[in-house]
């Protein structure tokens, strides 16, 4: 089932949590709402669920207006960051809860409930814990139970609020690939909230990047990572180097190196900010003809197959170090050591002309 959100706004006192947010979630897709805390992502999820009421705007499920529907009637599955398992009930009863509270007419028989719950516990691979209580389970197990409980009512959409936020790094990784596989099997329209860009890029079909109550960009993980639509998205998704540059007739100038920028062909002496990912900077030991920036290696950090370099530009008052990532092979080839002089050149950069600069600085 698809979800459509139209012009949602929500204020808490003077704080704007959502500002005119519109969004379309396709049937069967797994969508991530990504953003820093206070960006409105959780509020958006809660408004979709019906746990929060928007000041204005609409929520449509499968094209039908659900704005005035109570959370009970929306048939959404909701998974909370801190699990919210009922501690006075066994695991079995937790999962059975949504079936037991149905009006008599729609309530399955005890045998059916038993059947359905055990099937779900089997699905989350925790059927052996049916008689335990929540406090006897680990965090990862609790979150899987919370998911089983949400699925028990056969929701039309599944909403997850920072589902892995309270777990430690290892369990987190396991659980998110498990969630991905589960989604691939069940194809239930799912939206999850996260502040962890790696999580969003790795798990979701599409990512919605949010900031200050607005949507900055919607796209596939590749799109938002490779073609960020705004300085915010650039800085939020992964490491990035920022250069002040000058745009002039189809070229961007950083110092005395020029990079082709055909989309700015008509620009005349405009200032812009250029964003370059650390792995999109070429490093050479000698200046081979082309213009390149001279820099000094100030720090070398080897992480797995990648070597991170910190460089400082020569003859420049700007002392913000430039982050560069190269492969270990390339590193061996170059035989770099701390203090060496190198020449660098961005392979690819993204330009945001000056009107964006203030937004970028305020981040």
């Amino acid at each position, binding site marked *: 089932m698809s979800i459509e959100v139209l012009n949602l706004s929500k204020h808490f006192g003077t704080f704007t949590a959502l500002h005119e947010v519109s969004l379309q979630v396709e049937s069967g897709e797994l969508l991530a709402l990504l953003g820093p805390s206070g960006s409105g992502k959780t509020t958006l999820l809660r408004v979709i*669920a*019906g*746990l929060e009421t928007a000041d204005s705007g609409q929520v449509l499920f499968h094209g039908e207006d659900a704005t005035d529907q109570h*959370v*009970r009637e929306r*048939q*959404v*599955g*909701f998974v*909370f960051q*801190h699990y*919210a*398992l*009922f*501690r*006075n009930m066994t695991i079995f009863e937790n999962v059975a*809860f*949504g079936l037991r*509270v*149905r009006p008599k007419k729609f309530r399955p028989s005890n045998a059916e409930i038993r059947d359905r719950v055990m099937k779900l516990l089997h699905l989350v691979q925790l059927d052996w814990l049916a008689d335990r209580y*929540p*406090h006897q389970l680990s965090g990862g197990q609790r979150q899987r139970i*919370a998911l089983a*409980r*949400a699925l*028990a*009512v056969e929701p039309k959409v599944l909403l997850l609020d920072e589902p892995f936020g309270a777990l430690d790094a290892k369990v987190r990784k396991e659980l998110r690939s498990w969630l991905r596989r589960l989604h691939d099997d069940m194809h239930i329209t799912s939206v999850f909230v996260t502040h962890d860009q790696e999580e969003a890029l790795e798990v979701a079909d599409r990512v919605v990047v949010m900031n200050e109550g607005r949507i900055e960009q919607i796209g596939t993980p590749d799109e938002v990572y490779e073609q960020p639509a705004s300085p915010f998205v650039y800085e939020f998704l992964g490491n990035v180097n920022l250069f002040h540059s000058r745009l002039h007739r189809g070229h961007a100038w950083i110092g005395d190196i020029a990079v082709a920028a055909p989309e700015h062909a008509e620009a005349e002496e405009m200032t812009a900010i250029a964003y370059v990912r650390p792995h999109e900077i070429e490093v050479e030991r000698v200046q081979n003809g082309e213009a390149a920036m001279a820099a000094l290696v100030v720090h070398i950090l080897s992480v797995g197959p990648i070597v991170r370099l910190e460089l400082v530009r020569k003859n420049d008052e700007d002392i913000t170090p430039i982050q560069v990532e190269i492969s270990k092979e390339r590193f061996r080839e170059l035989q770099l050591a701390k203090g060496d002089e190198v020449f660098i050149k961005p392979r690819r950069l993204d330009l945001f002309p000056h009107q964006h600069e203030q937004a970028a600085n305020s981040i």
Partner: protein
Amino acid sequence: MSTFKQHSILPGFNLALGFTLLYLSLIVLIPLSAAFIRTAELTWPEFWTIVTAPRVMASYRLTFGASFAAAMVNAFFGLLVAWVLVRYHFIGKRIIDALVDLPFALPTAVAGIALTALYAGNGWIGQFLEPMGIKVAFTPLGIFVALTFIGLPFVVRTVQPVLEDIEAELEEAAATLGANRWQTFSRVIFPALFPALMTGFALAFARAIGEYGSVIFIAGNMPMVSEITPLLIITKLEQYDYAGATALSVVMLVISFILLLIINLLQWWSRRRSSKT
């Protein structure tokens, strides 16, 4: 003795603990033991005859019955008041919250004469009840009213903090799973509150059993009808029946200790139930 106390660099342990034990012994333990030692001077049949005499048995029934009824009413309304104070906003809430402790702060004798004046046949409340054939002052019903008054804060004050701590997410989870408000309350909130509610009930009950000041004015104090056990102790004392008074006080003490034990267990249960894991 080496394992009695763990090492600490802070001074004053011996002085503080020594003074504490001395003070407790002189003020609490030795006088309390007097009741037991003096009772031990009686033979078992003598003791049994005193503490099971018909007039005494009637006073037990009244004391326990009225205390139980008052604690039940307080459990219900205490939960209601705690709920209203935690969940809803209305004008004057702060003042009402503060006034809930009035029965703790108001001397029992004052409560006693005030309730008596109110529920007497010509009193503010009594004048409406009398025509309906309901007599409160100078009847067992009056005892129930007084005990309800003095037990009022216990349930409110034990339930209130637990209710404040219940995570909103639990209720939201229940709502997303299709539970209506009543189902959410009865299946999720109430079980979480139950240990605290029981603790508050037990505290109100324990307090009511021993209560004297607020009851004697309104009770009427008729033997076999409206005479509570603490009053019977006083009566025996005034008749210089020290053995009888002491024997009854030992019964009261034993009951108090059992209740104290139960309350401690309930509090332990409550803490375990409400601890976030």
